[in-house]
């Protein structure tokens, strides 16, 4: 039999050790959180430092003469004539007027290379919007070529990247700079245009619209189906081997790699039902398959968290099972279901793999306006740009990632906010 003093000593001794263990454990936690935060900070820092430049674009100020003979168009309302018009001649003529001393074929080509190949079409759009300009001259800021843009930005930053330019082009840019005829402007193209092979003309509007259309369809289909399935399984279905089997399968589906849903979509929707390739409908259907398990699982959890006393009270007051579920359980479970739906949508927003099989990884310039227009989505756009050889696409890629991350942050924050705001605790 030991003495009481021994116990006291033992406890004193072990107390210090146990306190130390707890302090250590806390530090492990802090270090883990710090590593996570540091990884996020490095990721964001890298993306922002690479991508911030893409929000500005280089423009060159020139006086453009809308010379009818030069374009070769008499009637601005005839679409065939407009299509055949020599629109590129306008910026070329403006550049030659700016640098009259340039001669020789190759020098002239280099001079034309200062401006984006889309500058002529920009002028066409402007002329069509203001037909009175025909025959007039105006001073206007025109979009510079991507090589010029890269050089000018790096030159302003003090570390000029001149590998893609000739010495003459560099002299021309310096002249323009001294005369205040070249400057950085907000890059509105990035937000108003679709994809392009010319980095300076490429924008994410098409991809954002594609993502939006696809997600709207996904939400419209997966939320009602997912919630109905969850309610039936939780409230009405008998507990037997079959429902267990279904539950195992739903959990399994949630863990299936997303590319498999793409293959499924290809086989069922495209090859069997003949839904067209590359359209938001087929994308929405495939992503619905992918998000359904997530929504069903979170919805079931939300329904489970409603205390049985609520159901018993409703039943006790004479409500039918149907009334109990619809009037009492569903409203209380809805915040949890919505949170699940938002997280499912955020997951769907970031998917590329299932879309690969159904033709949504494609070069699409026009901005989709309906569920049946060919479309691509934001993460696919990032993938396509990251793969492009042109140097100016590096910053575009990072800019597109920033936009995607912004959407994801907004969606996840609203999920947290909804939960905090609407959730009831018992």
């Amino acid at each position, binding site marked *: 039999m030991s003495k009481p003093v021994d116990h006291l000593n033992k406890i004193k001794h072990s107390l210090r050790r146990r306190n130390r263990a707890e302090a250590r454990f806390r530090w492990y936690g802090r270090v883990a959180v710090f590593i996570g935060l540091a990884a996020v900070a490095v990721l964001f820092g890298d993306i922002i430092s690479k991508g911030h430049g893409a929000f500005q674009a280089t423009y060159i100020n020139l006086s453009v003469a809308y010379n009818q003979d030069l374009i070769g168009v008499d009637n601005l309302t005839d*679409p065939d004539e*407009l*299509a055949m018009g020599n*629109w590129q001649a306008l910026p070329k003529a403006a550049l030659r007027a700016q640098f009259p001393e340039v001669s020789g074929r190759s020098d002239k080509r280099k001079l034309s290379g200062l401006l984006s*190949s*889309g500058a002529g*079409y920009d002028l066409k759009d402007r002329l069509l919007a203001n037909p009175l300009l025909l025959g007039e001259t105006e001073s206007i800021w025109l979009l510079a070529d991507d090589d010029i843009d890269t050089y000018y930005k790096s030159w302003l930053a003090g570390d000029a990247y001149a*590998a893609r330019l000739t010495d003459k082009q560099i002299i021309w840019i310096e002249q323009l700079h001294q005369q205040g005829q070249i400057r950085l402007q907000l890059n509105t193209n990035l937000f108003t245009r679709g994809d*392009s*092979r*010319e980095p300076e003309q490429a924008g994410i509007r098409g991809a954002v619209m594609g993502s939006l259309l696809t997600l709207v*369809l996904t939400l*419209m*289909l997966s939320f*009602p*189906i997912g919630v109905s399935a969850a309610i039936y399984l939780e409230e009405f279905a008998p507990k037997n081997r079959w429902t267990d089997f279904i539950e195992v399968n739903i959990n399994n589906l949630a863990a299936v790699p997303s590319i498999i849903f793409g293959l499924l979509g290809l086989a069922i929707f*495209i090859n069997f*039902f*003949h*839904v*067209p*390739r*590359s359209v938001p*409908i087929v994308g929405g*259907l495939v992503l619905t398959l992918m998000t359904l398990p997530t929504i069903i699982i979170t919805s079931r959890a939300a329904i489970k968290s409603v205390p049985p006393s609520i159901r018993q009270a409703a039943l006790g007051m004479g409500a039918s099972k149907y009334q109990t579920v*619809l009037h009492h359980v569903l409203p209380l479970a809805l915040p949890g279901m919505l949170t699940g739906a938002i997280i499912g949508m955020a997951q769907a927003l970031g998917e590329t793999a299932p879309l690969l099989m159904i*033709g949504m*990884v*494609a*070069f*699409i*310039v*026009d901005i989709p306006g*309906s*569920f*049946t*227009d*060919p479309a691509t989505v934001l993460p696919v756009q990032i993938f396509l740009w990251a793969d492009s*050889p042109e140097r100016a696409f590096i910053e575009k890629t990072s800019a597109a990632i920033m936009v995607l991350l912004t959407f994801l942050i907004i969606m996840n924050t609203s999920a947290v906010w909804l939960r905090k705001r609407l959730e009831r605790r018992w």
Partner: protein
Amino acid sequence: MKQRTIFAAIVMTMASITATTSMARESIEVVGSSTVYPFSTVVAERYGRASGKATPKIESTGSGGGMKLFCSGVGTNYPDITNSSRRIKSSEFKKCQANGVTDVIEVQIGYDGIVIANSVTAPVMELSRKDLFLALAAKVPGVLEGELIENPYTTWQQVNPALPDTAIEVLGPPPTSGTRDAFAELGLEGGCKQIPWIKAMKKTDKNAYKDICHTIREDGRYIEAGENDNLIVQKLQANPAALGVFGFSFLDQNADKVQGTNIESVPPTFDSIADKSYPISRPLFFYVKKAHVGVVPGIEGYLREFTSERAWGEDGYLAEKGMIPLPIDERRVMGKNTRALTPMTGSEALH
């Protein structure tokens, strides 16, 4: 009430989906080769902007994948055009015919040349495809017939006594690159099949044959220099002893820094690639479904843009993106046939 509205909404969505799927297509659908992709996307974009019509949609599926989709049938659910970095195979042509794709218009748009280059400060190299295979393959034939050994060669002289006594050091694209595939297929395989017993394997064991001919050594003699060909040019400039593998357009644009290696005594030039005397080059094609012309709007306009001088001509924007144009006479004939929508007869010599 509430769930009735929800139910109605679901039914409506389903109905609208089925209704819209049967609608006609407004834009051209192009699939196929990733090598042709950078060229066809530029044409599509220019065509869309100039005409104000819907811009064609282009998917990069690879030549084989594109051909499979293309030959699956006629109708707006199937693509209108497929790009290809090789000619259609007779098996593919037959499959097309079997699926009702009877009238196929073949358009050759130009060439893609792959060059082996070194710095202008070093002497011009003279190589054959067999030298390339022996120097760069992972496994090479040993002394005995049918025997394969790990590539033992460290200098060019060991490969071929006529070559200089310099170390083998080749900078080239990584396996993800199409240039690498073409280099292996046209350069290495071209040399590999000059060895009789390996050539005989092609018939008996095609996979093993491909494995021998296409696998590049990984012991540091072949250095993967990334997808960026500009970077290879810079590294060659810094290291006159090394050779580099890249597309012809980079040689053309950096003629002040690098020079092309003669392959079987043919220097890589614009003309030698165009007239096929330079061995490591391949023609680029696209194929059009004639039944879709007039059904899907814009196909004729797209063909006209692609076959215009401003696109595929010597000073055209495609040449600027790195494509080698056809000779002027061939361009004229090809352009005329394309615009007249002349389909393949089926009597072409296909593989």
